[in-house]
């Protein structure tokens, strides 16, 4: 596995759940405004 593929998979593993969490939190935060 090349370094580029490992970089992509590694950042995707942590990035995708993080984006999901941010998306859900922003949706909740919208209630404030």
């Amino acid at each position, binding site marked *: 596995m090349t370094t580029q593929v490992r970089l992509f998979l590694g950042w995707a593993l*942590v990035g995708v759940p993080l984006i999901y969490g941010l998306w859900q939190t922003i949706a*909740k935060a919208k209630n404030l405004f």
Partner: protein
Amino acid sequence: MASFLDRERSVAGPGFNRWLIPPAALAVHLCIGQAYATSVYKTALVKNFDSNNTKIGIVFSIAIVMLGLSAAVCGTWVDRVGPRKAMFAAACFWGAGFLVGAVGIATEQLWLLYLGYGVIGGIGLGIGYISPVSTLIKWFPDRPGLATGLAIMGFGGGALIASPGSQQLMSWYDSNYNPAVASSVASGSAVAKLFVTLGIVYFLVMMYGVFNIRVPAADWRPAGFDPSTLKSKALVTTDSVSAANAIRTPQFYFLWLVLFCNVTAGIGILEQASPMIQDFFRENGTSTVTVAAAGGFVGVLSLANMGGRFIWSTTSDAVGRKPMYMIYLGVGILAYLGLATIGHNATWLFVLLAMLIISFYGGGFSTVPAYLRDLFGTFQVGAIHGRLLTAWSAAGVAGPLIINGFLDAKGTPGKLTVDAYRPALYTMIAILAVGFVCNLLIRPVASRFHEPSSDDAPTGPAPTEREKV
């Protein structure tokens, strides 16, 4: 398996890309960050155990106290055995904590929940929190604030993932539970299944970190990095101080107080966020801020907490650690003063000031490992960081005690106004002022505490260029 976990087996070969390390660190911190999402099933646990908020809240308190204690006790071990073995231990404790907790929930034995999530899981929290930090500092000697900010941002991000994720899972396990309805409560069986799921998933994700973490070779330097430039910055040492010696220096205790004050002040708002915004904007006994809007405020603070961990820590690489804490504590004082005096005039102003305070709270956590590196070197920075985290445990007890103590004396929840909060807010200002003075008193560590020689500390120009990026 045992040899695979050894530090010697995790030394990176030539050409290893250091940007593979932050995802490995984040894999651990995103998992243990779940600790801040316990509120989503708190009511369900109260109902399951036929208990009350205080008794269930103890579970979280035990976990945070164990975090500080295990980080302090195991810090030297973590530095000795390396990040891979430490992350593996953290994954085992964190995963096992959920499984034992699940048994406690399923059999309605609260002590098992205390033991599982609180004690066993709390040990996983402490080891997991410190395990990647010193490794990141060694991989990013040119940008330690950015590196530790990335990982510790993950701890804030973990709650953002776990909170909606747990609600979704509980709605699958209990068809009567609807997270969109405020009064809906999941069954104990659904929470037990949630714990089993989280225990297994978190263990597997943390194993990604175990398999991918690497320590740099002793002579490794980033491309274009000259360690001699570090020495030119105030407070930054290229010498090494052991953990045993660090706790004999006044700098350690000043920094302990700085972290304690910063965290205590932040918790003052975090603890009361939802009712606080409603109480600040009350007309004729009725709040103009709805429950949904107050929930949105909690979400905004979570974003500020997470963003502050990355943004302020990265900024500290440019402005320096001591000036950064002067901003956290000094501007924090002004922000608290603004909350107490003019915060009730407009919702946007209240939210802006609270966001600033919470971003400084998060920034304080993520900047402190780099501050320790500056003062004590990289030699045993993980162990020193672990000992410093006892300040977090102490603040976790002191912060809520202060705010709740003042509010309890002023009236009953649901009927409080801005006047009830002022004594607590002024107390937080005093606490921040103490932290500000302590930070001012921090000077370079005396040479008598330095190690005679160290292979870990960067002391000369780069002998080779190994990095591909």
